[in-house]
């Protein structure tokens, strides 16, 4: 294996490691984004209740403040 071959393989491996890290970051971000909006324990739960009740705004705010 020549010097150029070794250099090429090293660069290719470095590229693949970077691709893997970017992929992991993106998947983590996508999962975090999804979790924050669908997690029933999260703040969106209060919003979901407000929407379901279809309250006027001032009553909705009162409802939200008493629940959180």
């Amino acid at each position, binding site marked *: 294996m020549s010097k150029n071959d070794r250099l090429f*393989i090293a660069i*290719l491996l470095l590229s693949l490691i970077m691709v893997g890290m970017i*992929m992991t970051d993106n*998947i983590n971000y996508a999962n975090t984004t999804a979790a924050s909006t669908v997690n029933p324990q999260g703040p969106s739960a209060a919003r979901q209740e407000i*929407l379901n009740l279809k309250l006027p*705004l001032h009553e909705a705010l009162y409802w939200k403040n008493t629940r959180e």
Partner: protein
Amino acid sequence: MKFRLYLILILSWCLIFMGGLFINRTTLENPRAFTGNGYGGPIQMHMAMSDTGTITFVDVKQHHETSSYISHLEAFLKQFSGRPTQNPLILGKDIDAISGATITSKAITDAVRQKRDSIMKIKNPQQTASFQLSRIIIPLFLTLTAIAAFALRHNPLRWAVLLGGMVYFGIIHHSMLSILQITQAGLGFSPGFTENTFWWMLLGISFLSALFIGRIYCGYLCPFAAIQEILFFLKIRRSTTAPVITPAIDQQSRIIKYILLFLIMGLALLFNSSAAGNIEPFITLFSGHGSKLAWVFLALMLSLAVFSFRFWCQYLCPVGALTGLASIFSLYKIKPNSACTACGTCTKVCPTQAITPDAEHIPQIDTAECIACAKCLRACPAHALHIQGPGHVQK
């Protein structure tokens, strides 16, 4: 042997694709959310309003957009808070788009406006025209010009199409064929034709042309390929496109892009998200958005393009891998006829090393690696290479 390998790869990919369509047909959706058609599929949203129609907040529950494009989603959504009924809620008028994510921004804005209007029973005459005929005509024109450049073996015309594609798809519209679209399609998501015409045009053009005449998209229309070729021809290194590594290592390294293709599809199915496909450096380059790591990766790919002809395309690009697999079945292919003297000139000049001589030194063109640049057609001293169609009898 190589054909059997390609066949296995194609069948495996088809199975993954069909599996994705099946999995996502069984997904239940929240009936209380309303949706807009984003770049990558449906965007599910919630909204709260006062009884006078003033919007208090808009929240995105689920989306399939590219994460780097919508990093400022929260700030975008805050624009809707406090908007009374009188506000038209039109992108570009009273709502500012997320830079580089116009389609996503428009999808959300249109969906919020329509939901508000339906709740308040407003008949809003201000409908934005979303369909643009130019987004069909110009890509078609570029594709047909590319096919003509290939058929006529016209290098200046090829460069004109390459630069035109770089400007139109890359710089002006930030829309190019991406593995994101393919994974979205595999997950069963697709935007409406009028909402995202480019999504359909790019998929259609690239795969139909691959099945017809080869990797025309890769060789003539891809904006990132154009930039890589420009960098390479800065002539920093010697002018030949032949790699300086052992041919065996070069050929074996090309399998990596197929592995990446399947890995991305598999991860997309596993997480029900196309986020795994957001690795392509041209997304960072043309959108201007990306993590620090993505920018470093882009810089690495552009640097390597100076020394190795289309490094990203040859070894890593999953889209190139897929269009390559499709081009195996192309109707028209480059083949030598009986006038071939086995001089090996075509093998030497091929920039992607897609030509290898057989036992009798007759050149065999690997259509999965060929980018249809027609360099071999121009270089052959015996004019023995031709674009041959089905049913052609070799003389």
